[in-house]
């Protein structure tokens, strides 16, 4: 039982990482009809830029470097969409072609990142953080900061979508693009904001992952990609609250699974469940109205 | 007449379908007689296209029955309903854009032994002979509908009217027992409307049964033997056009509106 709660605690920490990344992915999917397979590399970019600012260039404090890096990923996402993905998506009606373009972006980013940061395991320049007992859980202070931060971000996203004019327009665009087009929303601006947020959240997710794992490599986020897919699909592609719930479920599932099965397969567990569920509910667990 | 109605080629019973709470078809019940042209009319949004899709199996009905030539095909997948002898065209033409016009017809023919790979490799000679005969037949049909000169063009390059004709020829090559046409004359020029009307009459004279959605009541009066009126997803009335003009309910629900709209154009 004791061990279960420790793993449960780790699950909550993983859920925080997955939630950050999954919300970003699902926000972007809400306004496009394709999935961005370079998303894992957006995450890696956040972690790697933090490393650059923290260890290589300005030698900034980690907690200063991280937000700057995440914002840079947001800007990168806007640029990638404006100059690469959006033109292809406009020209080819088959979303699979745009997805292939995002595959290309993934390979491009991963290889360029390998040239810059090598394939070696990297470590942030920050004090070593020792696990502390919190109730039945065992967390390091850094991980606790990440978790609190993720909760704050989720609340902020909720407030943004529900309370602000910008958020309402984002939801309108996501629910029905053609309706939004005719109702005087500045589609271009909202699209840019959405891509920025998607990139920002990817960056934050990547950094959070590196903090949780206490190291990073160029490819560590990529192998996490399907965990994030699992959360997004579980919640229903395009649904923000669904993604948050999906992240919680997937985080807890993957981290408590090693109590029952080989730990090497813990990341696969969530996905197997998603696949089985999909076979019975092909529209996702939280179907979205208004999207065919 | 009695015989036509006791042994319909197609009949629907209480078909229902709603999309996310919006009821599109709400109990459509009608019989389509053999060897006649039947019109399916009704105001915009009455559910005509949805009814055709329910019959042909593109959309699964929430409830209700469909039978073709006495066989209950309710719930069957589209390809099996098609194999039962039903062909349909689409309101917005759906051509196989990357293939040639000739291939659009050839692929649509029934019972091709080359559609089984074993035959392709074990009986190549027979498959080849069949292909030649099929190409000849497709060319004849293309010639009949004035598309012969376009045989080697990519179907996506065709004009709107040409695509309408292509859809009809693609259905005809399969020699269906019942042909469903969704607004075959919408958006084409008056001369071609006339021509398409003649083609449809020819098909009926050749023994085919036809159910066509049509807005223009002048055309319906001229070429259709029988009319089914659909309103708000329900069958409102059936009969000859001349009879329906006498029907107060029909005139109120539909005819008046369309006649006015026609005058307005």
């Amino acid at each position, binding site marked *: 039982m004791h061990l279960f709660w420790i793993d449960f605690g780790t699950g909550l920490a993983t859920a925080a990482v997955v939630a950050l990344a999954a919300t970003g992915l699902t926000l972007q999917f809400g306004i496009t009809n394709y999935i961005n397979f370079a998303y894992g590399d957006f995450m890696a970019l956040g972690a790697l830029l933090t490393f650059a600012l923290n260890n290589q260039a300005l030698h900034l404090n980690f907690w200063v470097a991280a937000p700057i890096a995440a914002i840079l990923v947001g800007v990168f996402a806007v640029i990638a969409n404006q100059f690469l993905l959006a033109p292809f998506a406009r020209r080819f009606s088959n979303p699979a072609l745009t997805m292939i373009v995002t595959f290309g972006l993934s390979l491009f980013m991963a290889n360029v990142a390998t040239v810059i940061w090598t394939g070696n395991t990297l470590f942030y320049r920050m004090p070593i953080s020792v696990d502390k007992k919190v109730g039945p859980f065992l967390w390091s202070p850094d991980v606790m900061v990440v978790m609190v931060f993720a909760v704050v971000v989720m609340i902020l996203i909720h407030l943004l979508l529900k309370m602000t004019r910008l958020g309402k327009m984002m939801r309108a665009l996501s629910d029905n693009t053609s309706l939004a087009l005719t109702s005087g929303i500045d589609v271009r601006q909202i699209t840019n904001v959405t891509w920025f947020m998607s990139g920002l959240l990817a960056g934050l997710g990547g950094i959070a992952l590196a903090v949780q794992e206490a190291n990073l490599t160029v490819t560590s986020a990529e192998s996490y990609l399907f965990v994030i897919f699992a959360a997004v699909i579980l919640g229903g592609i395009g649904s923000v609250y669904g993604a948050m719930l999906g992240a919680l479920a997937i985080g807890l599932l993957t981290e408590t699974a090693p109590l029952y099965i080989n730990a090497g397969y813990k990341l696969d567990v969530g996905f197997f469940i998603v696949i089985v569920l999909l076979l019975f509910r092909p529209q996702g667990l939280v179907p979205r109205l208004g999207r065919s | 007449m009695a015989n036509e109605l006791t042994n319909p080629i197609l009949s629907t019973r209480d078909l229902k379908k709603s999309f996310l709470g919006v009821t599109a078809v709400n109990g459509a019940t009608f019989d389509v007689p053999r060897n006649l042209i039947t019109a399916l009319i009704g105001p915009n949004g009455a559910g005509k296209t949805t009814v055709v899709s329910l019959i042909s199996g593109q959309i699964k009905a929430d409830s209700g029955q469909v039978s073709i030539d006495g066989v209950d095909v309710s719930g069957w997948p589209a390809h099996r309903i098609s194999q039962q002898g039903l062909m349909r065209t689409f309101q917005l033409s759906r051509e196989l854009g*990357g293939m040639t016009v000739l291939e659009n017809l050839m692929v649509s023919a029934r019972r091709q032994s080359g559609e089984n790979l074993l035959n392709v490799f074990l009986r190549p000679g027979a498959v080849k002979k069949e292909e030649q005969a099929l190409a000849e037949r497709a060319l004849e049909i293309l010639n009949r509908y004035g598309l012969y000169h376009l045989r080697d063009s990519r179907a996506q390059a065709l004009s709107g009217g040409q695509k309408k004709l292509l859809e009809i020829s693609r259905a005809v090559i399969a020699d269906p027992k019942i042909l469903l046409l969704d607004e075959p004359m919408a958006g084409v*020029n008056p001369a*071609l409307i006339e021509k398409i009307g003649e083609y449809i009459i020819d098909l009926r004279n050749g023994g085919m049964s036809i159910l066509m959605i049509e807005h223009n009541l002048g055309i319906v009066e001229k070429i259709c033997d029988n009319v089914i009126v659909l309103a708000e997803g329900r069958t409102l009335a059936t009969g000859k056009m001349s009879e329906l003009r006498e029907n107060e309910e029909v005139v109120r629900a539909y005819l008046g509106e369309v006649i006015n709209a026609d005058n307005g154009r």
Partner: protein
Amino acid sequence: MSAFFLFVMTMVFYVIVFWIGSLGLDLVWSRTGIPIFAYYLYVAIGAYLTGLFSLPHVPLQNGVGNLFGLDMPGLLALPLAAVATGVIAMGIGAVFLRRLRTDYLAVVMVAVALVIWDFSQNDITLVSGNTGLTNIPLPLAGVLKININQWTYLYTGVALVWALALWWVMKTVSNSPTGRVFRAIRDDSVVAATIGKNVYRYQILSMGIGGFYAAIAGGFLAQLATSWNPSSWAPFEVFNVFTMVIVGGVGSNLGALVGAALLQVLFIQGPTYVASNYLHSPTFETLAAAAIGVLMWLSLWFRPQGAVPEKLKPTKWYLGREPQLAESINPDLTVEERA
């Protein structure tokens, strides 16, 4: 000189192997319209199975060994592994093509490949985890008593024979009425069902054939390397094969060869050779891999039909002679149409 010649032969081998791989992807993606993002999984399964079929059984000890080894001759192991992979591909198709809409299908395909890749890194009972399969025998080498260089020349010839046979098969399939049904499904699967074709069955058939081709390519890769492990492949490498198909020409059997040759020579094997023999640094090779992304974007943007576009079959091809009907033109079609 001899080292260079060996490099050239090896490169030719890769070109041939990826021609086979591209042919299969071309069938499933360009001719049937299925976003088969799990394709590289079939390459890997083919490689693993070829290895397992041709290796002797080694009981598991300290994480090394295999669950089963059939000790077959390599020449036989390859096609049998490919048949098995084709069946697996059909199974995957049967499960996922049945119910999933396109966007979920695409994601699930990628995810399945990623999950199985992850599995292959952890599983030590079947595929020996990260160690993978080693000492996969070089087919014929033992029988003929030849060294690795001679074997490379010989086996390049074997691969060529396979490729030519598979090219003929693909040509026959795509020219047949079955191929025409595939293309109809690609163009509009709703119409294909409307005209009475069992879309689901044909999609599964296409997946099975595609899986067979992928596995032949994978089996050759494993035999050339004499090993196969999780670092021999990655699910995202499917992008390279997509690029070969798109750059070469979608729906074109010869285009698949052009695409495979272009990528292998200029972007994969060539740079690897230059990097390891002259530059002594892997950076150039990595940059070349990044450039494949750019190549694909440019190609798709400026020449979406590819270098060797899909050829349309004219009436004459079907009839075996010029058509003899008098030209009839529907005069009403020449009138200006309303919308």
